[in-house]
């Protein structure tokens, strides 16, 4: 099984003597750079981890993306580097402050201070039929959030989801939490691939899904 291709705009580059995942754009969080390429640390980014682990993301570059749980913009800045119009939803004000700074120099990155659990509050801004939803929200009900946001996704679009077990239930076994979340997810999506992200993110499950 050969690893799927990375999207156009994401490359493995030599940075600081190491071959690392990288995108091209203005630096955001003091990451190492070389020749205009910024290292994308899979240990800090679930999506970066999914690329490193060879997930079949269906991304080829230039997609329209809705990113839920953008936090301070670490991952979404890389996404905006290789994708097309990118909507970044973040609910917490303090990280959103940094997100705005990351978005300012990226003219197709749109920061929104919104709660991913109430899509009607941003459906007047985010367009329909986006090619991909990337979700990394650390709240309870992560599958529920994905299902509610399915309305934005094109029929052949992809959901790239990182489920954090500890956000659902600190005491339960991660496997149990993941099963429950996947059950809920299947009410709105067909799950195409799942894999633990433990190499980079402890107790996280990476999921690729498409609307039903």
């Amino acid at each position, binding site marked *: 099984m050969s690893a799927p291709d990375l999207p156009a705009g994401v490359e493995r580059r030599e940075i600081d003597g190491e071959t690392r995942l990288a995108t091209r754009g203005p630096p955001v969080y003091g990451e190492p750079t070389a020749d205009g390429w910024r290292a994308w640390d899979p240990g800090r980014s679930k999506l970066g981890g999914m690329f490193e682990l060879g997930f079949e993301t269906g991304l080829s570059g230039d997609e329209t993306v809705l990113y839920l749980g953008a936090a301070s913009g670490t991952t979404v800045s890389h996404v905006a580097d290789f994708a097309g119009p990118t909507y970044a939803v973040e609910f917490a*004000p303090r*990280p959103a402050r940094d997100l705005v700074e990351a978005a300012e120099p990226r*003219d197709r990155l749109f920061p929104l201070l919104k709660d991913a659990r109430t899509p*009607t509050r941003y459906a*007047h801004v985010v*367009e*329909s039929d986006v090619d991909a939803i990337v979700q990394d929200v*650390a709240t309870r009900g992560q599958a529920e959030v994905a299902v509610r946001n399915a309305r934005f996704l094109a029929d052949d679009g992809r959901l790239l989801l990182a489920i954090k077990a500890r956000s659902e239930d600190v005491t339960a076994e991660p496997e149990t939490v993941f099963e429950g979340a996947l059950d809920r997810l299947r009410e709105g999506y067909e799950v195409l691939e799942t894999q633990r992200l433990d190499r980079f993110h402890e107790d996280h499950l990476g999921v690729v899904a498409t609307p039903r």
Partner: protein
Amino acid sequence: MTDTDDNADAGWFAGGSSAGSEATGDDPALRARIAGGEADAPRDWPGLAVESGFADSRDGYYDRLHEASVAATREAVRERERADDKQLVHAVRAMDDCERTANELAERAAEWAGSLFDDAEPGIEGARAVAEREPEGELERRAVSLAARVADLAAERDALAETIDRIAPAVAPNLAEMAGPELAARLIALAGGLESLAKKPSGTVQVLGAEDALFAHLSGRAPSPKHGIIYTHEYVRNTRPEDRGSASRALAGKLTLAARVDHYSGERRETLHEELRERMATIRARVEEGSGDGGGDGAGDDTVAATEGDE
């Protein structure tokens, strides 16, 4: 649901000036629409914007969206950052007041209902049942109505708890993850705000909420309290009594750091949580090592938790 009803299916740019018009002065209105607008469903906004003349091309639309969304979000962030920990404090205090008042009133309502109906049960649940009754006559009407207030207050308490669950992680992500939303809110309320919590030494955080015991200790009447409100945390409560002092100290130390990270950076910091899990595993492992001297009580619970931080 007021005058924006007409716009329920309109994009954020509805009413915006058309492309190419210079210095139109509608920017504040557009920012307000992004921040406060709603739509039932997303639509092809770029296409519709071009159609309506708001932008002359999809690229032009995205340029205007970028400018407006960056400005709107910056403004909203500024506003929210000012208010949020104060709002959380209000919410948690209101929740406590609702709970206390509901319980108090429930007692009165149950006593009254017991004198009127044969099957009246005590507590909030009992009040809910009484509230469902069809009253006959003046007295029953008053007793049932009182029970209905109790049920409403209890519902308000639950709604406040949900709100706290939702906003605490936004105000203080690390603190809320470590302590749970409710305890995080209580710590912030006891300290008088996130900033003052962030500035407290961890020894103070450890005994927040145990002021009576602390002052009794300071005036020489009692031993020093081991823990305050953090007692409600699983790490303290489910640790055997002789190790609770260490557990509270470890937890308070990390909670203090979490509050500082939340106040000064706002970023999630995973290492903080890992360090606490490891420390707790070490403390709880003493149960096995020292099983010769201490009793074996509670050892079963502790080993479950201890393995959690091992990986």
